[in-house]
Each structure stands twice: as C-alpha cells, then as structure tokens.
C-alpha cells in the first residue's frame, strides 16, 4: 500500500530529566556549580502539578521504560512517527551561560535516551529563548541531527515572540528550515495572563491560552513571516477552539490599524493559515457536537490541525469528535499529512 497516508503523533512528552541525568551531557564546570547552588529544575511542577495527574513525571529507568511501553501501545499502534519533547524550565534560568548550556544538555540527553533507541521518534529541541544569540547557536547545532524537527520554546515568555529580541533565533530556525513549537506553560518572572499572578491551577490553566494568543498577534504584526517566509510554528498543547475568535478580532484590528505595520500586507488570518498549525490535544470542546463542527469550519483553513496524543496525559481521546465531520482527505491531513508537511517529514524519512 504505497499510498497509505502517513500517521503522525505531533506531541508526546517524555519524562523530565534530572540534573543527574544531564551531568554526562554538560560542560565539565557545570555539575560542581549546580551541586554547590542546589540547583534543581523547579519549573516542571508548575506546568502540571503532580496532584492533577497530568504531570509527565521525572525520568528514571523505570519511568523511561514505562514511557516507551506506552508509546508502543498508545502511539505506535496507529502512528508511524511521533514528535517527542521534554521540559526543564530553561526559560526560568536568568544565568546567561547556564540556561543555554542546560538546554543543550537536555537535547543531548533526549537524543541519547530516546532518538537513539527508537527510530520512530523525532525530536523537539528546547532552547532558552531569553538569550536569542545562544539559542540560535543551539539551533545550528541540533540542525546537524536530522532527527530533530522542531525547536521548542515555552508559551510563557518575557516578551511576545514577534519582539525583536527573538529575531536572531528566528533567523537561525529559518536558515535551517526547522519548525518552532510553542508549548503550553513555562516559568518566567511575569505572570502568564494579562492581569497578575493567579493562585490556583484552575485559573492558570484556564488562562493558559493567553500567551499563545499574544504570540500569534505579535508574530504576525511584527512581520516575522514577511521577514522569514519559510518560518513555521506549531502551537502545542494549548487547544485550538479559541483561534477563530482571536482571528476575527485580529483581522478587524488590522483593517483599522494596519498603517502602523505596513509590512503586514494581507489579513493576519492568512499568515496564520499558512504558517501555523495546532495540535488536537487538548480540545476545549463545546458540549454540543454540532458546535464543534462549526468551530472547525470557522478555522482559517481546513489544514490547521495536527493529531496529537499528548501522551502521557490525555491519550488522544476525542479525536473522533473532530474527524467525524471531515472529509477523508481532511482526516488524512489532520492525522498525519499536516504534520508531515510542517515538519518536512517526507516519505523517505518515515521508517518502514
């Protein structure tokens, strides 16, 4: 069946490495410093506290083995490829030399622990976007390993990602024709909503789409896609049903204020349709299935979504509700075609 469409899981989460896990991958001066300062990656728990049951957990031999076993039963039972990431909170590190080196060590660990051991996995490499020049160097390094298909930055950041402070990073991503994945959460010194710090997980999670919306607006209006026409963004683990409402407002604002950003020559929703894709898990779904189909048709194009299981969290449940109203061709694209195109996963790069 040579024409059978490829199935891809665009978002699985490996357990988070510990400092000990990273030691073999760090420059020799760091382990002593990290031990002396008592450094630990504090940020992981803030994404999904352990008590929510949504946490990916920390790496251990048993955890890694368990994750691999789950991949077999819940991902590779239906998909040929999966994009794997992990989290370490490097965006929270203010030390301008430590943060990039930690990111690099995590990427080396991910390659050793997972990419080397399973050729069905493709890597999402993290960078510390707050130091864009160092992040660009890490992009150049991981680009030599074709198994890395994505450069990963957290949704929560000190500035919106269209801001000039990140342009060195986008230049590097563009020149290596990689995809940027903006992933849920993150740990920075400003709150991730437009008011101030919120205390409960319910609040943080409910408002957790606000950084994503901010980045979409910023990337388009700052002209990032005019500057780098091949730049592509995956919006990972954030939901997507909020996108039409944002784009109505953004297109309206552009009609009224586009003189301020004359390099934005087309409606913002067109840039979004061409340069951005969203993972399907989670889906903040209406109770009425008819409304979900309406929202799907409100997206700026039929190809906005990429299937994701969000393993080990939601197990990809709910994809049927999305695909129910799609044509067979549209289903194929959601289940793999869109991800293959975004990540440049041509058939030659799919293991048989």
């Amino acid at each position, binding site marked *: 069946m040579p024409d059978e469409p490829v199935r891809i899981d665009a978002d699985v989460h490996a357990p988070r490495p510990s400092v000990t896990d990273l030691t073999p991958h760090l420059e020799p001066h760091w382990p002593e410093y990290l031990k002396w300062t008592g450094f630990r990656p504090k940020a992981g728990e803030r994404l999904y506290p352990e008590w929510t049951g949504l946490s990916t957990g920390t790496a251990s031999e048993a955890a890694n083995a368990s994750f691999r076993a789950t991949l077999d039963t819940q991902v590779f039972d239906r998909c040929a490829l999966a994009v794997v990431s992990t989290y370490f909170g490097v965006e929270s590190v203010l030390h301008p030399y430590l943060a990039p080196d930690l990111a690099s060590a995590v990427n080396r660990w991910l390659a050793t622990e997972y990419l080397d051991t399973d050729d069905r996995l493709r890597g999402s490499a993290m960078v510390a976007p707050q130091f864009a020049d160092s992040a660009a160097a890490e992009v150049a390094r991981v680009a030599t390993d074709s198994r890395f298909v994505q450069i990963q930055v957290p949704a929560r950041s000190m500035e919106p990602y269209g801001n000039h402070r990140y342009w060195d990073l986008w230049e590097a991503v563009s020149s290596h024709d990689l995809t940027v994945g903006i992933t849920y959460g993150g740990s920075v010194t400003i709150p991730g909503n437009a008011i101030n710090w919120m205390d409960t997980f319910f609040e943080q999670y409910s408002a957790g789409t606000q950084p994503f919306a901010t980045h979409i607006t910023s990337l388009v209006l*700052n*002209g990032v896609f005019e500057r780098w026409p091949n730049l592509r963004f995956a919006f990972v683990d954030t939901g997507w049903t909020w996108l039409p409402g944002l784009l109505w407002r953004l297109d309206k604002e*552009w*009609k*009224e204020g*586009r*003189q301020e950003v*004359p*390099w934005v020559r087309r*409606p913002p929703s067109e840039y979004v349709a061409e340069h951005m894709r969203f993972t399907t898990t989670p889906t903040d779904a209406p109770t009425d299935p008819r409304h979900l189909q309406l929202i799907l048709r409100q997206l700026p194009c039929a190809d906005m979504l990429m299937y994701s299981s969000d393993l080990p969290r939601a197990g990809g449940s709910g994809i049927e509700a999305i695909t129910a109203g799609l044509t067979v061709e549209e289903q194929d694209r959601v289940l793999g075609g869109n991800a293959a195109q975004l990540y440049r996963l041509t058939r030659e790069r799919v293991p048989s």
Partner: protein
Amino acid sequence: MVNVVVGPVSDFPLGTMRQVTAQNRKLAIFHSATGFHALRDSCPHMGAALSGGTLVGSVEAPQPGCYEHHPEQEFIRCPWHGWEYELATGRSWFDPQHNRVANYETSVVPSGELPALADVRSTLVEGPFTAESFSVFVEDDYVVVQL
C-alpha cells in the same frame, strides 16, 4: 450620467475636504496635490463621512521596518475606524475588490464652457451651486462632478 457643478474652484482651495450634496447624494470633494477627487461621503463600514477623515500618502513596506512613502498615492482614512480608500479609485486598501466607495469623475471647467455640458441647466439647480450664484462668478473656473 449627469454633470453637476459643485462650485467655483475658488471655493475649494488646495487641501479642501468637504461634503457637498448633489442629486440627493452626499459627496466628499477633495482638492489634493493630485487635483480634484469626489467620493461618496459615507464609509461602507459604519457610515462615517469620509470628508472628515485624514488625507494620507501610501506607506508600503516590503520588509519590516523598510518604509516606502508614496505621497502621490493618496488615501482618505476614515475618521472612525481608519479604513483607507484610494482617492483616485475609491478602492479600499485592505480589500480593493470587495470593499470600495463610489468614485466620481471630476473636472475643472472654465465658466465659458459650462453651457456646452449636457444637462447643465438642470444639474445647476439640483447641485449645491445654484443658478443664481452661478451668474455671480462667471469669471471663475468650476468644479464639475460626473454622477
């Protein structure tokens, strides 16, 4: 199609943006660096009078931060939401095919040639510039809009 005399040129000095009523239509008359222009004086969006807007040149940018200013490509920017219409064509900047305001041909006619225009007698009555005042300014040139 009728020719409407909207007034003597001296009533529309350079820089004028003014509403006149002709043939029961509200027109925005502009006297800009490129001459006289007439648009329907109502933004299709919310109905604001474009004659109260801001006259601007076009600003393009092939890349972020690379500004190209074209003062000769004149746009009227609506005083409410800032939607832009090209003076020469009435077409909007953001959707020139579907969003536009009616644009009318304008000309400047010496008083001696006015009688040669078809329908001039009737349109003089219906236009803002009446037959009575017409006789007062026979030495002037006149702004004529083709409706």
